[in-house]
């Protein structure tokens, strides 16, 4: 059985699954329940001078009937007194000595205030400190949060202040609300940070109520810019974590955050170099229990792949991300439809016609005609034919039984055909097809040696010189 144990910037972890600093880590009682459920660590809800929150605080983006594809919040840091939070940290550490408890901190940008806060958090027994330079709302107005995270000089300076007194590892939590996240990552590294965590929430307005014209969440007729997280932000987080980890001047042990909800998400972040992962929205949606399958699924997958420890595969995908100019231009794939799986929805047909290269046709019955697109029946001609057809209700006694089922489950006339000579291998049809594995992309040997854009332009350069 694979081991999920790991050491993150010197912090011993029973597994890489941490709760992110957010409502699921508001208080000790919650965190102890989370540890019982299997979480390996928790980053305490950001501690600082207590604030007052508004109601309401959250809004979400639902998509095609699924709730909370993305979550938005205008909540601030902890609204509980510092000493209450610290006393509870001590309590949790006493009862759960093997679990990682990280204190997330955000205080006024003054050296003495930071020194004082760091000492108190460490005295309480926290295993590490996470500096919250990311909160995109509310705190910036007070010179904290992303106001610090967006200015590399401030981020470096505060990290240095903290490092002057800190005995435990210091993580800097990065805000994604910046053009190049590596700039602040580099500053944190220069400031002496031991590790990074990324990403915090992304500036957002999730939507506007079309009756009241007020954006959500509505606070007495007004709203404010919030922070976006949940499944929708995972691709953005993955991109940012990858770019930090691929940059030697930025790379540090990384606690990855953003849209993680399953062991698959976690594995992906580990593959781009993360040491641990943090989860917020998925727990807010389903509760602490989700960690059970994260642990189980990840171990199972590692066993199947023959990875004994997390280090065996950490960062394996990093070298596989490259610049576009290094991609092989002579690699060619084409779409292939598995007729036996096709259900005849013709979504691939209209996607290729309206959104790609007009090379999926519904002409299996009329007879395929290879060649220029113009000779094929256009999509609207098919629709007109349908609308002008005469259909009747089949009455058992009056009508012969329905046409006998053909070779495939869908009628042949509705199973589209790919003109492989015209297909550019863009993947679109395989992405829209509602049936798993029905459209696959098959490599067709180009008969040419691999050649990248860089190589091709270099060669042309030589030709021009001749």
């Amino acid at each position, binding site marked *: 059985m694979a081991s999920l144990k790991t050491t993150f910037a010197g912090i011993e972890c029973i597994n890489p699954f941490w709760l992110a600093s957010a409502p699921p880590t508001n208080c000790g009682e919650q965190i102890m329940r989370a540890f019982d459920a299997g979480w390996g660590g928790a980053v305490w809800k950001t501690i600082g001078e207590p604030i007052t929150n508004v109601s309401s605080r959250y809004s979400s983006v639902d998509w*095609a*009937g699924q709730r909370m594809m993305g979550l938005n919040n205008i909540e601030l840091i902890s609204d509980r007194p510092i000493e209450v939070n610290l006393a509870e940290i001590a309590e949790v550490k006493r009862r759960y000595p093997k679990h990682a408890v990280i204190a997330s901190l955000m205080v006024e940008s003054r050296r003495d205030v930071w020194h004082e806060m760091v000492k108190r958090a460490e005295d309480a027994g926290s295993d590490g400190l996470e500096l919250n330079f990311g909160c995109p709302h509310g705190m910036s107005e007070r010179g904290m949060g992303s106001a610090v995270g967006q200015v590399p000089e401030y981020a470096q300076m505060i990290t240095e202040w903290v490092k002057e007194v800190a005995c435990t590892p210091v993580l800097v939590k990065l805000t994604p609300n910046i053009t190049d996240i590596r700039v602040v990552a580099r500053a944190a590294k220069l400031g002496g940070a031991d590790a990074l965590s990324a990403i915090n929430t992304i500036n957002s307005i999730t939507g506007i109520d079309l009756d009241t014209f007020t954006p959500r969440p509505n606070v007495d007729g007004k709203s404010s810019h919030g922070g976006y997280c949940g499944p929708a932000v995972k691709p953005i987080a993955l991109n940012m974590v990858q770019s930090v980890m691929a940059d030697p001047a930025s790379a540090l042990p990384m606690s990855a955050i953003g849209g993680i909800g399953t062991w698959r998400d976690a594995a992906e972040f580990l593959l781009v170099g993360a040491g641990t992962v943090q989860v917020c929205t998925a727990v807010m949606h389903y509760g602490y229990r989700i960690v059970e399958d994260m642990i189980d699924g990840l171990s199972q997958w590692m066993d199947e792949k023959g990875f004994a420890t997390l280090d065996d595969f950490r960062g394996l995908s990093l070298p596989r991300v490259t610049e576009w100019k290094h991609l092989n231009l002579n690699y060619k794939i084409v779409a292939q439809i598995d007729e036996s799986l*096709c*259900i*005849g*929805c*013709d*979504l691939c*047909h*209209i996607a290729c016609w309206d959104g790609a290269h007009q090379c999926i046709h*519904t002409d299996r019955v009329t007879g395929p005609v290879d060649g220029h697109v113009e000779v094929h029946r256009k*999509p609207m001609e*098919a*629709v007109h034919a*349908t*609308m002008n*057809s*005469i*259909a*009747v*209700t*089949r*009455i*058992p*006694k*009056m009508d012969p039984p329905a046409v006998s089922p053909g070779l495939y*489950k*869908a*009628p042949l006339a*509705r199973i589209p055909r790919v003109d492989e000579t015209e297909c550019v291998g863009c993947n679109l049809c395989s992405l829209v097809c*509602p*049936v798993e594995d029905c459209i696959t992309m098959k490599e067709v040997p180009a008969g040419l040696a691999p050649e990248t854009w860089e190589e091709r332009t270099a060669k042309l350069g030589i030709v021009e010189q001749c």
Partner: protein
Amino acid sequence: MVEANRCLNCFDAPCTAACPTHIDVPRFIKKIASGNVAGSARSILEANVLAGSCARVCPVEVLCEGSCVMHHRAEKPIMIGRLQRYAMDNFYERGLQIPVRQRPELPLRVACIGGGPASLACAAELRQAGVQVTVFDKRDLAGGLNTYGVAEYKLRVSESLREVEAIQATGVEILQREVGCEDLAAFEREFDAIFLGVGLGEMHRLRIPGGETGVMDALDLIAGYKTGEILSVGRTVAVIGCGNTAIDAAVASKRLGADEVHIVYRRGPEEMSAFGFEYEHALQEGVKFLWWRQPIALEAGTLICAATSINEAGDLVVGDMRTELAAEVVVPAIGQSPLAEWLSSVKGIQFAKGRVVVDRATGATSHAKYFAGGDCVNGGREVVDAVADGKRAARGITAALGVMEVAHG
């Protein structure tokens, strides 16, 4: 909403192709999903003015839902009928009106004889083209079998009538008047075209000894139950025949309080003309089925049936075995007879097997002035088929009268 999202939004969708009126199913479903319920109903009405009743009475299992691609991935088909009902109920509950296309009023007059689904659909479509239409129906209320026939649990009289009113509101004139054979000559002079949507005639009579009393026509029973004119049947009822009408009559009897309701059919379950789901429904209502029996006499509340079988030549033969069945009321439901006599009085119209012969695409009969559709043409199918016939005939009429096609919207 969840269901509306489940629809894949197929291109050139097979459900749309299977609908006789070609309602653009994914279009109206996605409008429900986007929260545009009124737009959804309007897009449905564009294809089918009787969409409210169709959403209730259509045998969707053999129509749109039967051809939904979800079957091919071993999933339940999208509940198209339910979604359509949702959109249409919302439309009527909000008191919205059928949108009338922008077009000039034309000095053309068309008479639609019969006020059932076929005529109403034809009339509504003609109005959209600016034609002046008058519908004539001999019964107290218009709507044809939607009002008087289709089982009450599917479609209430009020639900049929609100559609009739909505069509009237587009400018269709509806007159309660029987058109006699003798009126036709005047009609031919007065109107530019005449649409025949007269449906079928009475139920076939049961010709057995003793069948003069204790027998009730299936259509009268269903209509009486629907309109509230009949409040009870006997304790024991025997319905003869096993089509969808027989099922409706048997279910209506149950609902009118009969203890024992039998459907007596001279063949086996494989041969019944009722849809499978109608049969299931009757079983659920507690209707009993007596297969391979043919009624031969009725004696004081007892129906005497003979056993039947198929001989080697494949013919149905009546055997010697007798069964007695308690039946205070016997309800023959062995098919409607065509209105042959009336229709044959229309000079110059061709008939075959009691049906008016038409060109399917235009509803044109062999007489240039007459068009026809619905049960009197197709021999008795479903409401949606009648609507589709009526709609095609309207287009046939406008084409024949030289009306330019009016763009939708």
